[in-house]
């Protein structure tokens, strides 16, 4: 929020929305590992939304689905088909993990668009846990399923022999950059969008540019709605792609 600062001008604090603070007690209190914070609250809300949609919404188990059951079934079918298409039949058993990540990111992103809310997925601590979690899981699955032949992922057998060592170096680097890009992409997209909205909201205090600013806010909000969905989708599909590499490392 922008507010007249002590010196009289406008001051923007676009990053204040990302501050983690205890939900109960003193706002400036210490944040320990188990402290219930605004991050806890909004993550829990995402979990509650999942329960509402996927447990309450499908309660009737109707042959002809209600609206909420229809949405749940659509989400299920969408992600299930994506996992099956990208990773193949043997990747389907990892579907619940990918669906969990997808739903958490989707609901966190969507809930973060509520004014005054907190966006857990804008934090690198959150996205990095997921990104590196996927990275380690996929690497372990790759070695367990394929043994040492998993390393053939880095040996591009379709390339000319001379290029293969060079390509192997590039492949290894890109493999280790994956978790970083995977997590920074999500956190960056959400952070940037929310910061931009805050900056525009700050400008709305200036009467002269307020109409333009508010129009831009609406447009950016629509864009952010799109980004919220797309980022969840991108995170899930990249997880599927990495999983496919682990299950079928041979080019």
């Amino acid at each position, binding site marked *: *929020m922008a507010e007249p600062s002590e010196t009289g001008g406008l001051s923007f604090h676009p990053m*204040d929305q990302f*501050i983690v603070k205890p939900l109960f007690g003193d706002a400036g209190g210490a944040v320990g590992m188990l402290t219930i914070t605004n991050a806890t609250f909004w993550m829990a809300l995402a*979990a509650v939304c*999942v329960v509402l949609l996927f447990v309450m919404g499908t309660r009737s188990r109707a*042959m002809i689905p209600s609206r909420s059951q229809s949405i*749940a079934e659509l989400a299920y079918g969408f992600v299930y088909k994506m996992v099956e298409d990208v990773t193949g039949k043997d990747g389907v058993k990892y579907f619940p993990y990918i669906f969990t990540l997808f739903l*958490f990111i989707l609901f966190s992103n969507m809930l973060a668009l509520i004014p005054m809310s907190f966006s857990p997925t804008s934090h690198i601590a959150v996205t990095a846990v997921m990104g590196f979690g996927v990275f380690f899981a996929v690497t372990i699955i790759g070695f367990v399923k394929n043994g040492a032949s998993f390393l053939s992922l880095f040996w591009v057998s379709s390339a000319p022999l001379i290029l293969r060592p060079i390509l192997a170096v590039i492949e290894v680097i890109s493999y280790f950059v994956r978790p970083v890009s995977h997590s920074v992409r999500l956190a960056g997209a959400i952070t940037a969008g929310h910061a931009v909205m805050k900056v525009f909201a700050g400008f709305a205090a200036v009467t002269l540019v307020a109409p333009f600013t508010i129009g831009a806010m609406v447009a950016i909000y629509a864009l952010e709605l799109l980004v919220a969905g797309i980022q969840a989708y991108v995170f899930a599909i990249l997880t599927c792609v990495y999983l496919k590499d682990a299950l079928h490392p041979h080019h």
Partner: protein
Amino acid sequence: MADVVTETASACVNELGHAVGMPQLCGDWFLNQIFWLLVTLAVIYLVLTKVALPRIGAVLAERSGTISNDLAAAEDLNRQAAEAETAYNQALAEARAEAQRISGETRAAIKADLDAAIAKADEEIAAKTAESEAQIAEIQANAATSVAQVARDIAADIVTAVGGTPDQAAIDAAVDTRVKGN
């Protein structure tokens, strides 16, 4: 937000409660977020695997099962309808053949009766004709006999009238010759 915060618990927030730098990079908050993230993911995962996914999977399987069952039932009914039509056509053809057979038999029976009646009538007619012919022959014979008798009598009378003595044998021979001659 600008109210007085006597002490800041974190290096990431200044004394006015505003963020210092990027809150995302504040190490003081990492553990808290990671802990609650893992709790949230575990809760979502458990809810999905224990309740939601089996339920949705069952509903989807049941639905596709129902749809394929209904399609199979529709196909079966279609086949039954075709069978019924075939049976109907066959029954119709049989009934037609039966009707033809019955009418043929009836016609044959009538014809036989008719033939018998005609034969009987012919027979009767033949009998009557024979009888009539016999009668006619008798009548003719009688007539011939009568003519001969009359001729004999007359001849005898004429002979007597002319004064002769009728020779009965000569008269009979002469009359018989003449009667036969006609």
